[in-house]
Each structure stands twice: as C-alpha cells, then as structure tokens.
C-alpha cells in the first residue's frame, strides 16, 4: 500500500516525431526515480500548468536509458507534451495499472495486433519477447493504421522482420504505398494461427479491439488468452476519482490491460 503523492520531476532527454501529430518523448529522472514500469503499465504525465494525462509506456529503456512515451496531440495537455524539447521538465507518476501478462505467454506463440497508436503500449511486449526469444514460440506482429502517414515506429517495425512475422496494413492507401489495404483483422488470414497455443495482445481503438478479439475467438483462441488495453477518462490513476469505470472495473486499477474473457460482455453494452 502506498500513499498518493505529487508527481516526480523528470527531464526530457529526447523527442522524436512519429507521425504528423504524434511524438515520442524520452524522460529521465531529475532526482528521485519512479519504480520500474512493466510492459502495458501507464504513467500520468503532467505538463506544467496545463494538466495531466495517462499514457502507457512505449519503451521501458530508450536511447538515453529513460522511459519513453508516445503522445498524440489531441487535446491541450497532449499538445503541450508534444511541444516539449530536450531539457524541459515534466511531472511523472506511476507506474499504474495492470501490464500485459507476459508470464502467461511463456511457451506460447505470441500474437500482437495493433491499431494506430495502439502499437505504443505493445512495443515493450515486442521488445520483451525479442529479448527472450527462447522462452516464447514464434512472434507475429500485425499493425494497422488509417493511412501510411499514421504508421508509428515504421523503421523499427521493419527491423523486427528478421525475428518476427510482421504484417502491416492501412485503411486507405496513399501514393507510393505498396503494402496491404484493409482493416487489421484482414491480416489474420495471412497467419497460420495455432489457436490452442497462441496468446494474443490487442490494442487500438475500442471498435478495432472488439472486432479483432471476436475474430480471434472465432478462429479458436480462448477468450482468456486474448488481452486488450482499454481507455477511459482518468483523473487520479489511484482508484479514487471514479472516472475510469467500465461496469465492475476501475480501469486504472483493474486495467488498462484486461483479459477479453472479463470484458467481452461489458464491451457489448452501449454507453456502459
């Protein structure tokens, strides 16, 4: 049990543009350090004077040894975070929430399905599996995005091809795009899925996760072998503000990563 405390000051060690509106920010402690993050856990990032947002770690050890978050500028806080430059200060607290259950995946084929910036919380899973390949079966990474310009970590995703099965698709092609076109679930047809020995981790827009999980179940995956990472409004991350409820779940505490067996019925209820 710990007490709710203010954020810790962290410093921006580096930033990288991922897409037109999305940047990765690497943070190193300015003093005291937060406990280590597990893949799938999130932090609250505080932009001075603007506010705080929950963001999953997109790499646990960046180029400068710091924690990396990938932020899409969709509101005032995320826009302020995207404007940060090396040397700037932010507030950071965490790690919060559940991570991806990698232990359960040991000895299994690992399937990653990501939509858009949903690849961010899954990237540490790829890093972990590739870093300990002997412990897992084959790794497959399926990535979808609206357009080629919305694909994050493009070079890195390409670099995984040697060690993993990588498939990429976009909803709408653009000049020069030679890859697949279609929603990410269409990529499942390209896999020789071994449903009885596969663990899947899925992150993206909720509708995408719902369809992907349903398709996987239809292909024989047990619902408890499918994990999804859900998003709701969050103010405290400590289970006290009540905003992140999804029926019986407090997603800052019981999520964001949840077994599909637990959430499947909840995702069917409109406006829950």
């Amino acid at each position, binding site marked *: 049990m710990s007490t*709710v405390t*203010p954020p810790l000051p962290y410093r921006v060690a580096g930033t990288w543009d991922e897409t037109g509106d999305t940047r990765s920010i690497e943070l190193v402690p300015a003093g005291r350090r937060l406990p280590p993050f597990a893949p799938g856990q999130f932090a609250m990032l505080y932009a001075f004077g603007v506010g705080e947002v929950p963001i999953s770690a997109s790499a646990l050890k960046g180029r400068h040894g710091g924690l990396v978050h990938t932020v899409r500028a969709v509101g005032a806080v995320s826009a302020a975070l995207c404007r940060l430059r090396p040397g700037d200060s932010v507030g950071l607290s965490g790690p919060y929430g559940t991570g991806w259950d990698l232990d359960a995946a040991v000895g299994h084929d690992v399937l990653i399905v990501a939509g858009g910036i949903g690849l961010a919380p899954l990237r540490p899973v790829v890093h972990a599996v590739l870093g300990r390949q002997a412990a897992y079966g084959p790794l497959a990474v399926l990535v979808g995005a609206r357009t080629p310009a919305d694909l994050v970590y493009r070079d890195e995703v390409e670099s995984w091809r040697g060690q993993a099965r990588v498939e990429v698709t976009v909803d709408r092609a653009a000049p020069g795009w030679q890859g697949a076109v279609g929603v990410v679930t269409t990529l499942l047809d390209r896999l020789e899925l071994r449903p009885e020995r596969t663990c899947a981790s899925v992150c993206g827009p909720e509708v995408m996760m719902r369809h992907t999980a349903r398709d996987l179940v239809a292909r024989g995956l047990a619902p408890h072998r499918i994990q999804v990472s859900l998003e*709701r409004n969050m103010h*405290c991350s400590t289970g006290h503000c009540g905003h992140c409820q999804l029926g019986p779940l407090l997603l800052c505490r019981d999520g964001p990563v949840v077994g599909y067996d637990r959430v499947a019925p909840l995702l069917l209820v409109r406006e829950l």
Partner: protein
Amino acid sequence: MSTDAEVHASQPPASDGLVMGKDGMAVLVDVLIRRGFTVVGPTVRDGAIVLAELRSADELPYGWGVELEAGRYRLRERPDGAAFANAAGPQSWKSFLHPARVREWSADRVDGDLVFTAHQATPPRYAFLGVRPCDLRAIAIQDRVLTGGAYRDPGYEGRRSGALLIVVECTEPGATCFCVSMGTGPAAGPGYDLVMTEVVDEDGHRFWMRSGSEEGAEILAELPARPADPATQETARAGVTAAADRMGRTMPEADLRELMAGTLDAPRWDDVAGRCLTCGNCTMVCPTCFCTTTEDVTDLTGDHAERWRLWDSCFDLDFSQLHGGPVRASSRSRYRQWMTHKLGTWYDQFGSSGCVGCGRCIVWCPVGIDITEEAAALHDWTQSGTSASTPEPP
C-alpha cells in the same frame, strides 16, 4: 478513535453504559471542545437540519423533526423536545472527511526545474456528534474506497484517523429511509467511539450512553451520568426496534447486485431518463459517492501551478469524456451508471454495496426520483418475462 471493524472488535465489550440528561449533553460538547476537538453536529440553519461546527449543545436541534418525501424536506417542531429524532439532512459527514474542494499539491517552475509540494495541512481533530448508523456505515465504505486499496488518500486518512465518532441510534426514521433493507440500521454497527440512544418519556429526556473505544470510555467518564437503569435501556431498545418497523421505503426482495447486472438493457432506464435532470444532486448528497475531478490552475505569473480536487458526479457529461466525445452521452446511461454502481458494481470494486439506505438521494432529487422505486421497477421487469434478451453488439 476507531477506524474499522477490527479495531472495534478488539475493544472491551460495552457495559450496560450510563444514562445522562440534557445537562450531560451540554457537558459532553464542552468536554470535547476542551479536549481540542472541533465538534460537528446537527443544527438548524436555512430551514434544515445541517451539519456544522457546534460551540455548545444549545445549538443541537432540540425540538425539531423533519418531514421527508421524494423531492421534499420540511422542518417540523417536535413537542417532545428531542434533539436527534430526525432523519438524514442535506449534508453528510463526507463534507468534512472528503471535502468538496481540496488543494492536493502545487508545482513551481524554478530556473527551469519543476518543484512539487504536497499540501497536507494538519487537519482539525473532528468529533462528529450524532452520526446515524447508516452514516456510520457510509464512513466505513468511504474508508475502504479512499484508504483500503493499493493507494491511500493521505488527506482523507489524516482527517479520518483523528475523528471521534459519536453515533446516535435511530428512533425516528423518515418516510424515505430504508436502512433496514441495506442492513445498516437503525441500531449502531461497529466502529463508533461512543453510541447514544435518546429517550424522551414521562421519566424525562435522557441519553443512554455506551463507549466503543478507550477514548470514548475516557470521555464518558467525564460526564455527569449514572449507571443505566434497566427501564431506560428497555425503552431505548424498544425505540430502536420500533424504528426498524417504521421504514418509509424498502428495497425489493432480490439480490440487488444481480438485479443491476441483469437489467442493463431494461426499458426502465429510458423511463427514468425522461425524469432525470442530470443535475447531480443525488451524487452530491450521497454519503458514499466519492467521485472527484481535478483542476490544474495557474496564476498570472505562469510560474506557479496548483492541483485542486473537487467533488464530481457521473451525471456530468464531461465525466466520461474521451478524445472523440463522452462515453455516457445519454442521461439514460448516466443514471444507469450511478444506480448500477451504487447497488451493484460497488461490490466488485470495493466488496460491499455502496448504498446505506439513508434516503438522501430520494429527498434531495428536485424531481423526486426514488432509487427504491426504480429498483422495484427493474425487479418487476425481470419477473415479467420480457427481460430474457441478449444485447447485440453495436
């Protein structure tokens, strides 16, 4: 000072207690003030029995009762002069333990660095005088939410750990009360420092007092009281027993948690949405509703920022706001969230019901929406045979 059931259980069993008159109540308030407590209790203000700081027992609502109905609260004079023969008022103790507006921390920009400072003002030591059994349970429920999980709210913990709870057993339930349905009253459950039962009859106006903690016993020893006589104890017990039979409302005889989980697509939600103003009053008066929002503010220099926490409500459209819009846009879904959380999913999240049957949400709803009536309607629907449908994915 006792914070949970275990603490209470380890205390010596209550004796037959003591009996004191109105003079004893006056001494009690004086003793509490002398011991350094900020005494908070019921008093008449603005046409209601509110909770406020008391300087003397004279401020207690002697001779005042209340008449309660859905969407209606009226003060009524009581010829018997009783102080505590009135059901829940417009506020609850959360106004003091979990205040509506709290500064959590501040951040300053100093030479490009951020310096964070936690704000933990030393809280007053509260003595809550006249906590009803339903509200005692409500405090235990908020304890669990705010200090019983992986993270403790330090502000709440500071205010709560110093608070002395003086419970008054309920002898005069209101027409909107249903503590018996929720198993929280009218007799006091565990967790009090002192408990009293008010008796007014031909033998006079008196209070049967028992202690539930060492500190309670110490305070009791300072009061002008005599050993409790069997007649007073008997009358007091009879008053509480009779109160149990005079609940104005009841919940349907059903497992409410299952009822909530099984009726998410009931047409009744549309019906209540037609009446609900989504004004948030039910959540604000509820003694267990704990939801808050945060405000990050800056001063004009731009170098000083503060984090404030305010009471929030699931009835606010912004409550479920995500990039792309609110999750719960319809008032149907917002009322459903409140009620299913209170009676159902609270069990999943915090191990108990979130409702204590105090009836405040019924009284203080401007249009008189009644949670017991809504629960009964949902229950009727499950019994009617039309509910066996499986929702289709959107």
